[in-house]
């Protein structure tokens, strides 16, 4: 592999990669989510049956991943807006990225109990 294939690297590129990957993942979930919600037009039973899968422990872990993707995309998106519209945005892009990561970690710790608590009670018993 020739040298210099990796474009720049560091915070700027990796945040861009993460923004892309999370964005695509969220968009694909969105299709599924509109379809499952559309089942309310079929029957209450059909909808409740599909939503029951959202309450299983395995899908709860996927939901936690979805929350992780959405939170990163949201916070980093605000950073991108700051880089584009704030006069000093480009100068502080690294500091803003580490603020995004720090806030993301805090929110993800906060989301453990609300998102995974239900699954933990199913697996370990309440």
């Amino acid at each position, binding site marked *: 592999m020739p040298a210099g294939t990796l474009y720049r690297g560091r915070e700027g590129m990796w945040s861009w990669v993460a923004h892309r990957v999370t*964005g695509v993942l969220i968009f694909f979930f969105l299709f599924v989510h*509109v379809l499952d*919600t559309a089942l309310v*037009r079929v029957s*209450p039973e059909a909808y409740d049956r599909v*939503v029951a899968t*959202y309450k299983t422990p395995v899908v709860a872990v996927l939901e936690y991943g979805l929350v992780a993707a959405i*939170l990163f995309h949201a916070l980093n998106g605000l950073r991108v807006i700051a880089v584009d519209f704030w006069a000093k945005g480009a100068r502080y892009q690294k500091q803003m990225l580490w603020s995004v990561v720090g806030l993301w970690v805090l929110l993800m710790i906060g989301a453990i109990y609300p*998102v995974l608590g239900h699954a933990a009670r199913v697996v370990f018993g309440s």
Partner: protein
Amino acid sequence: MSTTETTASGIGPVEGAPGYSVENPAPVIEAPRKRTKKTPKSTRGNFEMYGWLFMRLSGVVLVVLVLGHLLIQLVLDGGVSKVGFAFVAGRWASPWWQVWDLLMLWLAMLHGCNGLRTVINDYAERANTRLWLKALLYTATVWTILLGTLVIFTFDPNIR
């Protein structure tokens, strides 16, 4: 014209070049990319600029709409365990949440569609591949937006 003539600017003669002065001004050269009356009208328009702006504007709104949605669906009142037909019926009884969900649906789908359009343009190298992937993307987007909109507007809590 003598090449030994000195100019007012104090710049000496340069090999055969005429010395310019107030009386003998240099010809004005137009900037290479300057837009003039003769420049043909751009046929491209500002679509990409509006797309760029839309991503930022819809993004700010979506941060509020989606994080609020996650808070209601996954965190408050027992998290996901309370979600069911009855819960949806209760929320869509209010026009506030109908508008919230409708706006979220349209903005998120268009935001995601434009994002994926960029991804396709970046990675699909053959023109035909780009064409078909984008045709698939736009079809899926339009259908999903229409389906979601139809569901919100025609929701019937007494379906059974």
